[in-house]
């Protein structure tokens, strides 16, 4: 021991006292640091499961409900009156679901001004949108389809210029919060500090025991042995728990959240593209802007290298998730094939045939192909979320009881060190 000459110079009782202070302080410092670390990780893990993931899901569902409401009502409008009761119920359910998710997101609050502004925009815009849709349906049902059509356009503009951008912003923010919470639950810096402190205290305990053995010729100091045992047990427990949590959260993110996010983005892009087809028919402006946007969305969705479906496929969990993504890729190709016919008819101003292809439910129609794609994307997201929730929940339980164990261990370490060293000190009185 490097302090051996120093020890001789300052006297054994002084060295014993110094060791006692160092070990008690080190134990307490380790206990506090480890407890804080475990607390933070456990809290972040709990937040992922109980807050961030549900909010991210609510934001994603809100976007999908809003977009689906718009597609449902514009498609029904194209089909003309009388509107089917089931379609009206579908639209009402979408609006109700969006409102419920909005309420969930609002109650979660948050101190971001941008988030508050987006939530306020949807709160204010949703009744305005629903009002325009109602006016469109009223005019249409009373025999003024053109006026109804113009109100449907205004409604869609409210949806596309106000509601969907705000919903997209909220989803991006909640998704970022989920990623951040997941990273916090498995972040390295705090655990590294705790382990370093454990190592330092362990080295001091080891050197102290070796010094005492040489000085006193007693092979074991029971107090220091107890402290060393407590430190070893809790450090190993901490490392195992952290490794397990990191592995579980890694799987939940890599094979749950990541493919679900890619599929959610693909679903959003598909809804945007579908909306392009429907609005193009309603506005009949001769503009090619809808077709251009459809092509942009098609390139985003995929399948193919660098696309959202490609990203989802590369990270999807084996089984239901992978199967759904593969099906979605095939569905997308079928839909694009039907859509190329749609835009060819539009170019030829063959609106009647175009309408049949866009809103018809028969085999080969754009509506049928889109519905299949949407269904498979939804199935894939559900499968990915099962993986995410299962692994995130498992990861969050890894820290169960550890915080208390760390505190008890720190107390044992401090108590054991004090007891072990004070017995030796007593020999000098």
């Amino acid at each position, binding site marked *: 021991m490097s302090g051996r000459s120093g020890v001789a110079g300052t006297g054994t009782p002084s060295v014993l006292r110094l060791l006692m202070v160092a070990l008690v302080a080190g134990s307490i410092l380790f206990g506090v640091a480890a407890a804080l670390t475990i607390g933070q990780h456990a809290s972040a893990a709990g937040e992922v499961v109980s807050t961030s993931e549900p909010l991210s899901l609510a934001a994603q569902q809100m976007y999908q409900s809003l977009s689906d409401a718009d597609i449902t009502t514009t498609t029904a409008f194209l089909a003309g009156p009388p509107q089917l009761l089931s379609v009206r119920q579908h639209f009402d359910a979408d609006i109700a679901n969006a409102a419920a998710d909005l309420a969930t997101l609002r109650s979660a609050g948050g101190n971001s001004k941008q988030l508050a502004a987006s939530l306020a925009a949807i709160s204010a815009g949703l009744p305005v949108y629903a009002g325009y849709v109602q006016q469109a349906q009223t005019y249409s049902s009373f025999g003024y389809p053109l006026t109804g059509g113009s109100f449907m356009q205004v409604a869609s503009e409210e949806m596309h210029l106000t509601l969907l951008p705000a919903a997209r912003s909220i989803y991006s923010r909640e998704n970022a919060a989920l990623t951040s919470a997941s990273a916090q639950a498995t972040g390295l810096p705090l655990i590294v500090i705790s382990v370093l402190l454990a190592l330092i205290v362990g080295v001091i305990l080891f050197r102290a025991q070796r010094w005492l053995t040489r000085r006193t010729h007693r092979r074991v100091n029971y107090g220091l042995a107890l402290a060393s045992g407590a430190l070893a047990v809790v450090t190993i427990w901490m490392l195992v728990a952290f490794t397990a949590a990191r592995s579980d959260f890694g799987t939940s993110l890599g094979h749950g959240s990541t493919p679900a996010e890619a599929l959610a983005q693909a679903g959003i892009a598909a809804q945007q593209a579908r909306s392009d087809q429907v609005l193009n028919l*309603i506005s009949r402006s001769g503009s090619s802007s809808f077709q251009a946007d459809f092509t942009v969305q098609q390139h985003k969705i995929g399948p193919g290298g660098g696309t959202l479906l490609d990203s989802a496929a590369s990270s999807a969990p084996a089984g239901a998730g992978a199967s759904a993504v593969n099906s979605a890729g095939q569905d997308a190709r079928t839909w694009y094939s039907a859509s190329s016919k749609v835009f060819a008819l539009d170019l030829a*101003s063959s609106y009647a045939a175009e309408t049949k292809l866009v809103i018809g439910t028969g085999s080969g129609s754009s509506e049928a192909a889109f519905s299949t794609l949407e269904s498979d994307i939804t199935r894939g997201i559900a499968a990915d979320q099962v993986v995410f929730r299962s692994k995130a929940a498992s990861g969050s339980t890894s820290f169960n009881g550890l915080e208390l164990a760390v505190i008890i261990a720190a107390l044992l370490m401090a108590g054991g060190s004090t007891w072990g060293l004070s017995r030796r000190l007593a020999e000098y009185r």
Partner: protein
Amino acid sequence: MALSFRTLLAVAATSTMALAAGVSDAYGQPSSPASIKLTETGSTLLYPLFGAWASAYHQQFSSVTIATAATGSGTGISDASDGTADLGASDAFLSSGNLVQSPELLNIPLAIAAQQVNYNLPKLPASTHVRLSGAVLAQMYEGTITSWDDPAIRALNPGVALPDLPVRPLHRAESAGDTFLFSSYLSTNDPAWNSSIGYGTTVAWPKASGALAEEANSGMVSGCQKTPGCVAYIGISYLTQALREGLGEAALRNAAGQFLLPTDASLHAAVEPFVPATPSNETISMVNGPAPSGYPIVNFEYAIVSSHQPSALKARELKAFLAWAITKGNASEFLNPVRFDPLPAPIVTLAEAQIARIR
């Protein structure tokens, strides 16, 4: 020439009144001693009115010059969208596609316009207005009614000596707001047309025997004038010219079953039910509306303008001009020569709110 003379008279009168009254609008113009040029392209239907406005405005505010061009509504919208022109003039409101792609665009109503149906039946006196319905017009354009003395036309016109003349349906060759309005009228009145052809700025015209295509409203007037038996849809600012060329003017059947000509009263009546329902962005179709005495093919003429201008000066001058156009520019001396109607007060209020968004 009569149109030009009346327009000049109107311009002179307005300019004199404005100068005498020391006119300045809500935006405090003229704001800049430096000269500025505003450019407008678009609707051929609006072109004559925009020309009159440009002259009058320049006379009143010599630092501001407005260059106008009749390019068609579609070009007006795209020019305003990509900044090629400061103002686009359009017979149709912006589509959702335009707005989703360019959310900074505004469509601001400038006046109420209409579309009439003219025909070339040489032996029919000008005082006789052949009655036509949307369904009959659809069949004429589909080629299933091929002669002017077809029983379906005769049934609408008891006592009128309809000639045994082939129907020559005339339509616009290019993408046009007028085609959108006319095909909309046909679609709402004829389910077969709606399901097979539909409506749009361009449509897949049926291969009717003798059908012709012409560019712009002026081309429709001259084309019809040269083609006995023709039937043509033409913007109301060309009605005076069409009548001068000897074309007849049809009375169109509205949703209530009344046959009407496009007069101040029938235009006003047609628009009235839609005024309280007009949304804040003033996108509304008024074709074939519910008013019993309302003319069936009416619309707002729109200025398409970006709410984000490249400079504060340009924004201020555009706001000033548009504010002038929907108020002083809606005076009868400007609108009467082109047979437009002024905007109702609530529509002006909505338009002013939109103009205020220009920055």
